[in-house]
């Protein structure tokens, strides 16, 4: 380590002695990015634990190489009210294969989009913040698979910006340790209520164990918002067990329930996903949330 000293201001915010004005979190992100690049030689950033060497061209489930690409970066207002407007940066590629993915063309293709130019994106994020954006959101695809680039970008973000980590919660302990303390909010998509649906619709094994492990960790390490998209025909197999688990294990956690499913990408491979969520299903989903006293946010 550099022998850096931490300097606290009157509000208890720490900054680096070698880079005054740069919060510790940004400094830590820069320091950890090289560690994250080294991790790509035996990639186990997500729970697939492929073990491939991404630095020499080997690819795992996500097909991502060593460098991230970005398919969208813009100010958005569709996320949770406490986060918007947000400057949302979407990384290409994902470690899940959700057939209903709304951004399937880019999320299933880690080579989609444009090369990440950190200085350019940081400047655009800074401009967005100066024009009223409240947060900067890192999402995908799934940003976890691009941790080296993500950490470099996080280090370049405006010092006072609130950073949001939007994730599928399929990370390993290794990835979480690299992320620890760098993002102010974890916005977690808890998609499936059982492993059978997860395997069938997203080709991911052991889903429940992994996502719950990540959720419990995130709740202790940052602000946490859990989002669930109600899928047509999956109220009882997916939303109900998700809601019941949240009520039991994370009481009071902020829950963002969404009923805006539409049959995108390869949804037509599954007969029940070939329609939008009905009003009745939406009403029942929200009623269940109220019955369980979930802390619903908009």
């Amino acid at each position, binding site marked *: 380590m550099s022998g850096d000293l931490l300097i606290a201001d009157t509000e208890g915010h720490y900054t680096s002695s070698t880079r005054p004005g740069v919060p510790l979190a940004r400094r830590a992100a820069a320091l950890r990015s090289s560690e994250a690049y080294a991790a790509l030689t035996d990639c186990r950033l997500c729970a697939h634990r492929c073990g491939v060497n991404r630095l020499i061209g080997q690819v795992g489930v996500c097909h991502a190489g060593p460098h991230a690409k970005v398919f969208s970066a813009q*100010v958005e207002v569709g996320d949770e009210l406490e986060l918007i407007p947000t400057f949302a940066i979407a990384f290409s590629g994902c470690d899940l294969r959700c057939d209903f993915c709304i951004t399937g*063309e880019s999320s299933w293709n880690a080579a989609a989009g444009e090369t990440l130019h950190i200085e350019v994106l940081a400047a655009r994020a800074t401009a967005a913040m100066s024009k009223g954006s409240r947060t900067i959101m890192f999402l995908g695809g799934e940003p976890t698979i691009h941790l080296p680039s993500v950490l470099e970008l996080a280090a370049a973000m405006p010092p006072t910006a609130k950073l949001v980590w939007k994730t599928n919660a399929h990370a390993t302990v290794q990835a979480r340790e690299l992320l620890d303390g760098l993002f102010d909010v974890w916005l977690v998509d808890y998609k499936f209520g059982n492993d059978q649906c997860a395997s069938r619709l997203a080709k991911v094994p052991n889903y429940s164990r992994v996502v719950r492990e990540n959720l419990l960790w995130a709740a202790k390490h940052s602000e946490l918002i859990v989002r669930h998209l109600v899928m047509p025909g999956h109220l009882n197999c997916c939303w109900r067990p998700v809601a019941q688990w949240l009520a039991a294990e994370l009481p009071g956690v902020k829950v963002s329930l969404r009923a805006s499913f539409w049959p995108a990408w390869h949804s037509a491979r599954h007969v029940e996903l070939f329609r939008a969520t009905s009003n009745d299903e939406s009403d029942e989903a929200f009623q269940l949330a109220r019955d369980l006293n979930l802390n619903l946010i908009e």
Partner: protein
Amino acid sequence: MNAPENEGPQRVSPEKSRPPGPTETSADILILSDGAILVHNLTPVLAAVLNAINPQDPSIKPRAFAAR
């Protein structure tokens, strides 16, 4: 049982639907037969448009005003 893929929503060709580069802005919108409007990647401009169409919609109003 899986539904035939060719009965899915009509999509434009891959060339025309190429994901926008990070310097462009884009949003996806789907209008259902009952008039409900679903949006993905809601931008401030589109939120303002939707709010103008239906100022009584409580879900869109705070988003339309969030970026002002």
